[in-house]
């Protein structure tokens, strides 16, 4: 047999399509992104460190990552329950609820920002209720968590849902016939199967939340050291024409985002490999 299994050369258009892909990718994404790294070289290492480790900036990292982490955790728990309910149960209006889960993908972030602020402000529908228990949400770090939870809401649901759908009924039936109760079956049979998808959804929600700007700035209050997120610091520096220091902070965020992206891709590769092996 000839080794023409790869059949690379039969279909036309390889050079054209790959060439165009690489050109467009370079012009729109790679070269502009490299500008950020090149711009930072205007700063000496000492200056760079001084900018990215200033107390106000460090406070913003803590806030951005902390709030993103809590938002992603909330989504992991409630996203899992949502996916479970959407796959396993039937109830009136389920189709609408299912479609509505994608709202954070479709609703512009600025609209989400002012809507959440209106609802969670001390005179808002939910905010006034919480206020009577002494809980302030809008214009505090708590408000940032609310916005980031909104932004990340679809990720866990949409990664866990298809995996839950594909689970074999037989394994659960076997567990039940061997005397496991539902909770044991969930923890020992179902959870291990959906764990990688859950982790992927969590990581996606976390990565999305870190860079988020539009929905947060309206509800955050934006007080330096207290409720000022890192993307806002970049904007503030830009408005003061401090391009080099804005870019320095941007580079720190870019590196962290890239690491997260590679981790997510690695995770998905691991999941798909696990899936092929188990088949």
């Amino acid at each position, binding site marked *: 047999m000839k080794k023409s299994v790869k059949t690379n050369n039969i279909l036309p258009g390889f050079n054209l399509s*790959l060439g165009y892909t690489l050109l467009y990718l370079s012009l729109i994404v790679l070269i502009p992104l490299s*500008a950020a790294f090149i711009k930072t070289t205007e700063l000496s290492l000492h200056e760079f460190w001084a900018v990215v480790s200033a107390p106000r900036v460090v406070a913003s990292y803590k806030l951005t990552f902390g709030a993103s982490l809590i938002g992603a955790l909330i989504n992991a728990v409630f996203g899992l329950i949502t996916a479970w309910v959407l796959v396993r149960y039937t109830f009136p209006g389920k189709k609408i609820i299912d479609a509505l889960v994608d709202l954070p993908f479709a609703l512009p972030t600025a609209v*989400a920002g002012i*809507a959440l602020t209106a*609802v969670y402000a001390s005179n808002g529908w939910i905010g006034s209720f919480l206020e009577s228990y002494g809980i302030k949400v809008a214009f505090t770090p708590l408000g940032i968590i609310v916005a980031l939870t909104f932004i990340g809401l679809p990720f866990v649901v949409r990664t866990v849902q*298809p995996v839950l759908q594909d689970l074999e009924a037989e394994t*659960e039936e076997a567990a039940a016939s061997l005397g496991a109760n539902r909770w044991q079956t969930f923890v020992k049979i179902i959870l291990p199967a959906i764990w990688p998808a859950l982790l992927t959804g969590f990581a996606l929600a976390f*990565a999305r939340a870190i860079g988020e700007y539009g929905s947060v700035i309206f509800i955050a209050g934006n007080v330096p050291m207290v409720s000022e997120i890192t*993307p806002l610091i970049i904007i503030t520096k830009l408005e003061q024409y401090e391009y080099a220091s804005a870019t320095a902070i941007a580079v720190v965020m870019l590196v962290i985002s890239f690491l997260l992206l590679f981790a*997510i891709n690695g995770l998905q590769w691991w999941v798909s490999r696990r899936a092929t092996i188990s088949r």
Partner: protein
Amino acid sequence: MSISPSITTAIPSSQYSNYQAKVARSRATSEPFLIRWLLIATVLGFLSLFLIVPLAAVFTEALRKGFAVYLAAITEPDALSSIKLTFIAALIAVPLNLVFGIAAAWAIAKFDFRGKSILITLIDLPFAVSPVIAGLIYVLIFGLQGWFGSTLLDNDIKVIFAIPGIVLASVFVTFPFVARELIPLMQAQGKDEEEAGLVLGATGWQILWRITLPNVKWGLLYGVILTNARAMGEFGAVSVVSGHIRGLTNTLPLHVEILYNEYNYAAAFAVASLLALLALLTLVLKSFVEWKAARDARLNELA
């Protein structure tokens, strides 16, 4: 696979609908009535707090001062010019990323080459970049202090604080949507049909138009719907490059921000309600495309 919702995961295979019914009926593989309704109530509560109540708030706040105020807010000249600019940005960004998505998917799905997985990761990059940074990098290149700043100034071309910058930022943030939708779909379909077309004497373009694109039409449409929604709604990236010049470089989301910061809440929510309607329309179209794609998939299975 991707960070965007994907139609490939949205298609339920017919074999599972059977299984779902089985699981729901069997007592051994379902939960007691009370727990079921407790979980459903939890989900409805969670989604109400974060999705439904805020969405309802947009429309109530928009109509709080009456329909006349609402109508005035969305028909004043600045609002109309921001609507126009939003459409222009989307009209340029969507076709550009559509062509890119088809080219990238063709190269990645139909051919083997080294560095393919790196290329796929690179296409995903814009998802991982904060919108604010997406705006910043174009300022570094085309801004007054940027790489081409003085050249552009000499030739009297404005990119930053002008429409080209807004278009560029919109293209960047929506860059991967179509490609990420098409790549897994075209990979799953293989290349047998294309090769058959080639053997029968079709040219490359004929294969693309008559075989490949009709096969992936729902995925394509799905990608376009997502690209369009994001391009029209983008805030952070556009905000950095726009300069917020009223009536000139304001898109709809930026116009919402300006009105809101002027404490003109009724008008801000009125304009925001247009964007919320657009989001709801997006969800309806998305569900329709998913339903069509699932139906086609079932018909193919039967055939």
